[in-house]
């Protein structure tokens, strides 16, 4: 589905990603874990085109996308849930969701997807006419994910969906991520600091350190890997 080949990115004089290679197959949940400042979010933003890629290739279904603008990449079926949620605070929940379907024109499909996200997150249906800024952190995260789902992406990029949320809500969110993956066969690329939860739902995982991928393996193997346990799982 998605392949990153020797990708290098940076901000100004600072190079953040060095020679990153990643592969994501269709239908998988792949997670990228790492410490603060390792380059997790930058990897995502490079894929979605918000941060320009300096060297290397990003292939989506074999097509090069590293030179495309962010909106073209969304049109190709890659949708990102940005870190820190970034919902439209003054627009209502419903309008936020409508904006998720900005590039779509099939009214019937949009309506179906609206029903689908309302069934995933009933609280959003209840609050559909409330402005996004008045939601709680967990609800905002749900809204941000639903908004991305409204674009009916083939590949969903999630940037730290657990950030700043209560443990109970984190568990709920991760369950729903898994459900989205199963029910709609949406490929999911999950960037997380919460390595434990992420590896539990993921098929495969990558570990990034200082902008370099240092480990790549199946999720359960990473969970039992002593180095990973020591560095990220706190065992």
């Amino acid at each position, binding site marked *: 589905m998605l392949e990153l080949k020797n990708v290098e990115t940076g901000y100004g004089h600072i190079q953040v990603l060095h020679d990153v290679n990643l592969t994501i197959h269709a239908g998988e949940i792949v997670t990228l874990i790492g410490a603060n400042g390792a380059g997790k979010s930058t990897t995502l933003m490079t894929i*979605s085109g918000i941060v320009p890629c300096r060297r290397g290739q990003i292939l989506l279904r074999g097509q090069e996308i590293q030179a495309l*603008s*962010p*909106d073209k990449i969304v049109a190709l079926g890659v*949708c990102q849930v*940005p870190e820190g949620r970034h919902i439209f605070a003054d*627009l209502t929940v419903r309008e936020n969701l409508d904006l998720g379907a*900005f590039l779509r024109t099939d009214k019937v499909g949009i309506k179906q997807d609206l029903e689908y996200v309302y069934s995933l997150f009933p609280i959003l*249906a209840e609050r559909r*006419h409330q402005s996004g800024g008045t939601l709680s952190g967990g609800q905002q995260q749900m809204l941000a994910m639903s908004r991305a789902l409204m674009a009916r992406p083939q590949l969903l990029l999630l940037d730290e969906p657990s950030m700043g949320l209560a443990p109970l809500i984190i568990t709920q969110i991760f369950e729903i991520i898994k459900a989205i993956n199963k029910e709609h066969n949406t490929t999911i690329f999950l960037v997380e600091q919460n390595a434990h939860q992420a590896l539990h739902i993921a098929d495969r995982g990558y570990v990034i350190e200082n902008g370099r991928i240092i480990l790549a393996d199946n999720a359960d193997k990473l969970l039992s890997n002593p180095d990973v346990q020591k560095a990220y799982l706190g065992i």
Partner: protein
Amino acid sequence: MITVKEVKKSLLVSLWFVFLTFPLMVIKVNPYERTVSWRWSNMLYVAIGTFVISLLAKAWFVRKERRMARQQDSCRSRTPIIQKILQRPGYRYPLAAFLLGAALAFPQLFSTYQANIMTTALMYIVLGLGLNIVVGVAGLLDLGYVAFYAVGAYSYALLNLHFGMGFWTVLPIGGLLAALFGVLLGFPVLRLRGDYLAIVTLGFGEIIRLILENWNAFSKGPSGISNISRPGFFGMEMSLDQAMIYMYYLMIGLLLVTIFVVNRLQDSRLGRAWLALREDEIACQAMGIDKTRTKLIAFSLGAFWAGLIGVIFAAKTTFVNPASFTFMESAIILSIVVLGGMGSIVGVILGALILVLLPEYLRALSEYRMLAFGAILVAMMIFKPEGLIAGVRRVYCYQGRKRNTALKNDE
């Protein structure tokens, strides 16, 4: 109620004001007779005046807070009364019809002079609505809006002077040229937001004015271009009075078109994209909204209306010079939008009428015009920061589950 503490605070405020205004209000120096007169009575007026005003302001705030507390559970009553009337079709259409009738009858009932002033007010309404697209809806603070107005005015003046082109031919050309300049300004400022954007647009406005002022060969410099022909009506000869009234009806027509277009735009996909852009650029990109295109369209559409009005301005006054396009004009148009209420069409109309008509009818107080202007804006920021008639986004209340299912059906 007002407590002793608040009275004390008001006393302090009035003392501070007495101190601040002391050199201005109390001391009067006569340099010819070399005398200094002390007007102590003024000091008393300032003290009493500020004391009363500050007490009134306090009382107003207390009332507002209480009202807000009461309305916490019923969000419906938060909408101002005018918007409530406007949202009801039963009131909305008769009211609109009445206003339209009054506007159409206006030149028949009053003198040409009055109609002339009204035409100016109508022009500012359209300018305000144009700027409202850029500032109110898309959230791009543009302080150089007058530049596009100038582009429109000068394109008519120059095309008329050199090629003898008529008003109706140039009207779309002027608008399109202004829109082109909007795109030209838009490109370099795409990455800027907020204060930085304001500064660059301010600079752009000044650049256009300075070019017009100094490039004599092109624009005839500060002396301007005169004898621009008035708009024609199927080749009819018109007296000055008739031309003025014709101009008035022309503006009414253009205003109706503008209101229609702006209204439709706000509810469109593009309008949504602008609102989203105002809120959060990163999320916008993640949703697949083309940031560049959306911003440029906002700039060019806003500029388009300014260009149209520029052409009409040149035709109305039959004379243009750079002095008409100073920063002051931009500031007035921006004040119209802010005073009226960002993003609200009714608000902009009201704001324009107040800011254009009041100075006309209060000519006796013209010396204090800028003072009053500043005072009004400061007071607005304190008492009604959202503008006279805020742009209300439709609000629905969650009233339990039963109601909710009912709502679901009509979606």
